[in-house]
């Protein structure tokens, strides 16, 4: 799964981080930062609006939708035969070899979670504090010609959620603990950039 763009939107809808990865972005149209700002605020409002669209059948039945997202191991972690023999974990304030190891509940109960098109798939992860992490990946899910239930899209959704939650962990380390960072402002941290780059590289 190749991640092409990462956007972080704060709780008022302003874009605080935007980064393109990989050579595939050369093919895409060159968008100015203003365009990205517009995209970010549009997505922010769409997230809110999509919460209103609930089919009546769901409202009547009140089926309990399972909001837990299972842990998908190895998303964004370097391969196990890498020659790192440093004893200290490289994960900042997280002990062990991965940021988290158990399944977690999604805080995004009714907003937009995934958009799949012909050329890319967009994942949205919303945190409890209203921060939104948006990843645009160039992987496209194959069309399923049979009528049986397929798990491709759901699995991709889980991988996307796991990945974005790890980006959230990196954010809580390198952005929140930076003395010169003020909340809700654009992120200008080299450490954060480096860690995100590593993780995107590992996912590919």
């Amino acid at each position, binding site marked *: 799964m190749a991640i092409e*763009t990462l956007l972080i939107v704060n709780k008022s809808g302003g874009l605080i981080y935007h980064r393109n990865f990989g050579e595939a972005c050369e*093919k*895409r*149209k060159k*968008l100015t930062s203003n*365009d990205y700002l517009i*995209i970010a605020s*549009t*997505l922010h*409002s*769409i997230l809110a*609006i*999509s*919460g*209103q*669209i*609930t*089919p*009546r*059948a*769901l409202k*009547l039945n009140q089926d309990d*939708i399972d*909001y837990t997202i299972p842990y998908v191991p190895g998303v964004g972690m370097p391969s196990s035969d890498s020659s790192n023999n440093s004893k200290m974990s490289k994960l900042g304030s997280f002990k062990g070899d991965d940021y988290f190891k158990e399944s977690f509940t*999604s805080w*995004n*109960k*009714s*907003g*937009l*979670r*995934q*958009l*799949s*098109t*012909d*050329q*890319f798939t967009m994942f949205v992860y919303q945190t409890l504090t209203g921060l939104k992490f948006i990843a*645009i990946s160039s992987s496209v*899910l194959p*069309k*399923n*010609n049979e009528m049986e*239930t*397929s798990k*491709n*899209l*759901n699995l991709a*959704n889980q991988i996307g959620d796991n990945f974005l939650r790890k980006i959230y962990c990196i954010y809580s380390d390198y952005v929140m603990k930076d003395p010169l960072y003020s909340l809700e402002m654009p992120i200008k941290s080299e450490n954060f950039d480096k860690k995100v780059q590593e993780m995107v590289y590992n996912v590919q």
Partner: protein
Amino acid sequence: MTIYSFWIFDKHCNCIFDKEWTIPSQPRSGTTNSKQNENVAKLLYGLIFSLRSITDKISSDPVDFLSQKNRIRSITTGKCRVHLFETATGFWFALMTDFKQDDYYDILNHIYKNIFVRFISLNYISPSDFVENEDEKGGQGIRKINNKNFINNLELFLSPLIS
């Protein structure tokens, strides 16, 4: 594999047909073209429209004349999934389902080809453009598809899928 509702939008931003299944086991239940769904229709249209504009901005241009523009296949929210099908004439077919199925392209294609085209477009009496004057453009239209053949065939086709 539950289908919750089915919507058709035209190029004038109007919703010209909507059908909602409330009790999954009975395909004839539910509402057709109800007034209560008007607001939901507008929200849904706005959602699809804004996501399409974002997609157009982000995606690359088609390489040659024959390859298609980037189209939206599905939108997943926390509670349901909306599958989208666009026709060249500007109609949008939206199907709201649960999370079990990835892609409803074939079903929507079939609905378009065999049901919509047959009973609406090729129908001499039914209007091709559901807008009759300038007031009904831009989301203000009130005409809906009431063709019994269309509705019956739609229910017949979708009933084995609603479980």
